[in-house]
């Protein structure tokens, strides 16, 4: 009997690998994401050039063998800056999404399970948060606590909470009247257990997709905050900060904007592919296909 069980689990894992191998977008997404994580990790110990050293004579060079994407107005190597900046950008966006999910999803699920005044209070509160332009409130937060990457994370994270709460609540609400939830209630399971066992697995794909969207918005929000000087502080850099600095140089050194822009696009694309692919690979309904 137990052999049977082990065999079944083994089978599940093999099926997962088989489907992952067959799913192109999952593979592409995973490869891109792994590459970016690798680049960010390598930048901790090594970059082609030292980004804190200014080399004014070499400023605003075009792409060449020595500097693949050229140099900026201080003569810093753009490849090295992208590598350095990836850490800040990814960390800010990822942690902000994490804050939103960890706080927002339980709140949304709770509101959907309880309904009544708890639900009303949550939803009206999130209406109020939505009513403030995110950047304005981020300015407020950073004005109180001072500028910096950590405060940017908190500011962006706070605005992710109602987003995830709403997605989770809406999807959970449509599941609660379903018969399999009724059957679980008839089996005496409480709201918390039903949410964990039945609601969350069924809304996970929505949350995954929302997560990749919020991640790209997070990178953009960090760029916005850095642009007004409230994000990562010099000499630290981020992709958003690089974009902001490139703005005045657009006409004479377009590579300064193109490189961080491309980095953002590739990262978001990779995560989107990964999210889509994961959703398909994990969906049991698609298990026997392909």
């Amino acid at each position, binding site marked *: *009997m*137990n052999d049977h*069980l082990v065999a*079944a689990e083994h*089978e599940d894992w093999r099926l997962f690998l088989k489907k992952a191998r067959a799913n192109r977008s999952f593979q592409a997404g995973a490869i891109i994401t792994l590459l970016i994580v690798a680049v960010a990790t390598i930048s901790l110990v090594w970059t082609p050039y030292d980004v804190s050293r200014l080399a004014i004579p070499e400023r605003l060079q075009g792409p060449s063998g020595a500097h693949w994407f050229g140099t900026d107005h201080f003569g810093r190597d753009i490849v090295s800056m992208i590598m350095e900046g990836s850490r800040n950008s990814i960390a800010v966006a990822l942690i902000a999404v994490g804050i939103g999910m960890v706080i927002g999803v339980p709140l949304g699920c709770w509101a959907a399970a309880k309904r009544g005044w708890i639900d009303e209070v949550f939803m009206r509160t999130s209406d109020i948060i939505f009513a403030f332009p995110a950047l304005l409130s981020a300015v407020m937060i950073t004005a109180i606590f001072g500028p910096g990457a950590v405060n940017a994370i908190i500011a962006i994270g706070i605005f992710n909470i109602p987003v995830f709460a709403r997605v989770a609540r809406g999807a959970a609400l449509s599941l609660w009247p*379903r*018969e*399999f939830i*009724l*059957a*679980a*209630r*008839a*089996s*005496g*399971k*409480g709201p918390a257990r039903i949410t964990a*066992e*039945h609601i969350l*697995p*069924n809304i996970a794909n929505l949350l995954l997709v929302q997560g990749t969207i919020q991640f790209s918005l997070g990178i953009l929000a960090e760029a916005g905050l850095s642009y007004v000087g409230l994000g990562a502080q010099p000499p630290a850099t981020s992709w958003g900060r690089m974009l902001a600095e490139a703005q005045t140089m657009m006409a004479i050194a377009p590579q300064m904007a193109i490189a961080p822009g491309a980095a953002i696009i590739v990262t978001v694309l990779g995560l989107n592919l990964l999210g889509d692919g994961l959703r398909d690979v994990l*969906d*049991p*309904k698609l*298990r*026997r296909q392909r």
Partner: protein
Amino acid sequence: MTAPILAIDTLDLTIGGAPILKGVDMVVEAGKVHALVGESGSGKSMTALTTMRLLPHGAEASGTLRFGDEDLLAATEERMCALRGDDIGMVFQEPMTALNPVKTIGEQVAEGIRWHTGANRPDAEERAAHMLERVGLPHTRFPLDRYPHELSGGQRQRVVIAIACALRPKLLIADEPTTALDVVLQAQILDLLKELVSEDGMGLILISHDLGVVADMADDITILRHGVVQEAGHAVDVLRHQNHPYTQQLAEASAHVPQWQSRARSPKDTALLDVQNLVKDYPGPRNGLLARGDPFRAVDDVSFSVPPGRSVGLVGQSGCGKSTLARIVLALDKPTGGAISFDGMQTSSLNDHDAQMALARREMQVVFQDPYGSFNPRQTVERLVAEPLHLEERPLGRAERRERIVFALEEVGMPADAMHRYPHEFSGGQRQRLAIARAIITRPKLVVCDEPVSALDVSIRAQILDLFAKLNDELGLAYLFITHDLTVARAITHEVMVMDHGKIVERGATADVLDDPQTEAAQRLVAAAPDLRRAIERRVGNTVPPSPRERGEGAPS
């Protein structure tokens, strides 16, 4: 004999290479009802969709579909757009989803008129009003600016029919038009269709799995199985003589009465479930910021009891409060007033956290109607069937747990290796078996069944009814069996209660109540219930179809 409206000749259909229809022939004549009968997967809906040329991607059809003097399979898409909704109308099964919720009923009926005839808005709306009047929705009571959600299911189906018939099509296709409705509404909608057919002289293809309905309605019949015509001909002859083995098999399944040893057993004196003066109010619609309308009383002073091992039926039209009552009995909803005691416990006053509640839940399980919606699609059968096991006082070991699951699966006739698979890998009937396995895994004393067979094909329905009978015999389970299908109530219940507008209006031994109903509500149900044998007798003795009045039709739903 006039030329047929639609002549289907050796129609073959493949979807993605898989053969769906094989050499189907069928002729529909003007002013006649042609029934297309078969179980799910037999290709009856696909025949209709081929006629409309609304096939899914990857479908390839060959043969001829002669409509008037053109071949529909050869017609251009542009020509088909002109035909659809004008000369060929279609009525779908589910009135809840066949209407656009953000458009008024007047707009939706007028839309097709304006599109096909180029009429201006006032003219089209006048015709729409006239059409809605014909389907029994006079604009004095149902103004054109009503929205679908303001109408009941039966009324919505009337709107769908009005849309399909607005331009007096030559051919109307009705795909299970009454399957989602209760028997009384079903009889009304069928009468309406019959009236329209005889008044407008159109041909009607009636797709149905219900031989009782077909025997009552159809002039001609085609019986399909696995995409092959089994038998075709004059409906009454085919159904009366039942020459073809498959026709016979369908007829037997639809009147199936399971072998049930405890059928004649007399009840014990004790009550397993005892419901006293139960009342459930739902708050009325919000009229203002703080004001609310009068509350709606869904269950009104209901008292009854279920003895151990007894099967009690609860029948009534949709919306009469049967499902609300079931949910309160299962303690999924709190009653407004009254008391429920189950197995000596006052479940109506217990809270979800009470230890006694877990005990009560273990003894009382549920099987729902929809075999697709009652399982979490992301869990394996093993976890799904084992769901109620956490109610056991002591946690079960892994091996013991599996033993219980295998045992429950065996009892409902499913193989043990089903537990590693996901619910979507099973057919409707198999899923319903799994739902029953989940319900019996804790060895309960009472199972509440909310329309457990109404979504199933007749032959599968017969098997599931056999299973219910077997479990009652072997495990002594008591059932509270909710259904609107009187054939099912007859097959599997000892006693039956008739519910109407929240009240129980009649009760007694099943045969007594259904053979000789006393109250108006019960008579209405019995009169409307389709019955193969009675319908054939009526039509053989009297070839004129009964008028709506003879069937006791009142005002439109």
